[in-house]
């Protein structure tokens, strides 16, 4: 329990940064389904690591505190002797952990509310398709059991039947694949560790591409899917004013079209494997740190009796009086 913990914490942060850096190109170039799973599971693992390391710092700080040690029957003295990490760093870890706790509660509340809103609305519709008669052109998947597809009548009127089939197949793919859970997972992970934030845009692109691929397989025409994206963008784009946040999301459609029209890039195994390794190596370090902490406290429990002799039977008041006769 020493400087190696700090080195691993630093390495984990570097891993998170590398993961975030590579995430967009995996979302663009790896097979979409593989990219989505790697991004969502990898983000969750890295988020767990990001909590585990501050947690260890907090626990060994707490373990040095006499009243807590007495309650848990371990030797605070031994914990102090074994932990060489400066107290300031331990305190910093504690502050980080507290901040993460707050962020997690906030993000979990936000995601859960968004999902339950969607589920409630989905329950109120009769058919597989909910049409909005007086709305600006839009189409989206409303997750639920079963999920529904929501489309504005204006958009349906602007599209040909084969384009409608593409749009419906795309949205149905979101619902069948439970893509909202992948997105929620990355959203939660990036709330716990802001370094992971770029993965949010990446999981968005990966799930859109995933749905595009499913739609393309269903209609058997990749160029049709690409044209439909372009057509829907034009129909919707005229109506939706360009706001700064949307400008950031904008190139997504161009990337999807590019991915549909280019020749297949192969599985991009190296790229995806790098992403997986970036998530798994810090996870190994975190597991090691947790087990070292466990060992430390077991040792401290064994040392409890020896370093702080307790009179037997423990009769505190009279014992004190008879200690120095």
């Amino acid at each position, binding site marked *: 329990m020493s400087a190696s913990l700090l080195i691993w914490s630093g390495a984990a942060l570097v891993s998170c940064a590398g993961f975030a850096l590579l995430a967009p190109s995996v979302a663009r170039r790896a097979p979409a389904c593989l990219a989505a799973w790697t991004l969502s599971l990898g983000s969750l693992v890295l988020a767990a690591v990001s909590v585990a390391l501050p947690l260890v710092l907090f626990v060994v700080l707490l373990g040095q505190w006499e009243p807590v040690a007495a309650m848990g029957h371990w030797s605070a003295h031994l914990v102090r002797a074994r932990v060489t990490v400066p107290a300031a760093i331990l305190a910093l870890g504690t502050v980080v952990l507290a901040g993460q706790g707050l962020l997690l509660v906030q993000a979990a509340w936000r995601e859960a509310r*968004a999902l339950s*809103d969607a589920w409630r609305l989905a329950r109120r519709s009769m058919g597989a398709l909910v049409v*909005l*008669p007086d709305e600006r052109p839009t189409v*989206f998947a409303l997750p639920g059991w079963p999920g529904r597809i929501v489309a504005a009548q204006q958009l349906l009127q602007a599209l040909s*039947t084969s384009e409608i089939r593409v749009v419906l197949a795309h949205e149905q793919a979101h619902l069948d694949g439970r893509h909202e859970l992948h997105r929620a997972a990355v959203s939660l992970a990036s709330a716990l560790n802001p370094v992971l934030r770029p993965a949010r845009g990446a999981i968005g692109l990966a799930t859109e591409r995933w749905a595009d691929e499913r739609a393309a397989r269903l209609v058997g025409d990749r160029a049709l899917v690409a044209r439909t994206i372009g057509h829907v*963008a034009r129909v919707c784009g005229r109506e939706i004013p360009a706001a700064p946040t949307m*400008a950031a999301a904008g190139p997504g459609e161009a990337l999807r079209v590019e991915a549909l029209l280019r020749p297949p890039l192969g599985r991009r195994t190296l790229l995806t494997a790098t992403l997986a390794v970036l998530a798994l190596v810090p996870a190994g370090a975190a597991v090691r740190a947790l087990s070292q902490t466990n060992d430390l406290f077991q040792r401290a429990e064994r040392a409890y009796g020896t370093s702080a002799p307790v009179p037997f039977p423990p009769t505190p008041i009279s014992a004190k009086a008879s200690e120095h006769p």
Partner: protein
Amino acid sequence: MDRRASGRLEAEVLAVLWASPEPVSAEEVRVRLGGGLAHTTVSTILARLHAKGAVIRELVSRNYVYRPVLDEAGLVASRMRALLEDQRDRTGVLSQFVAGLDRRALEALRQALEGEGGR
């Protein structure tokens, strides 16, 4: 036909009905859907939608024509829009087919489509 395929067809039939300005017959729906669907398949879907109350039908010169009905979920459309708008930046639970393009992205899109003879 498995449940998933029939759900998809149901959505397609509803989309065709909503896209059309006039009530349409089962035969017209079949023609617009294309893809060599049997007349009975389309009729069955329309009958099921009628039973659910998702469409109404009327007799016009001895033929049924169908019109979609706004359901309860459609009536709370404004809430859906609000949900979507609320979501756009803060969480990713809902995914829009297109997120709204800026001029630069539209241009890139147009270029990508040019080689494909986009409309």
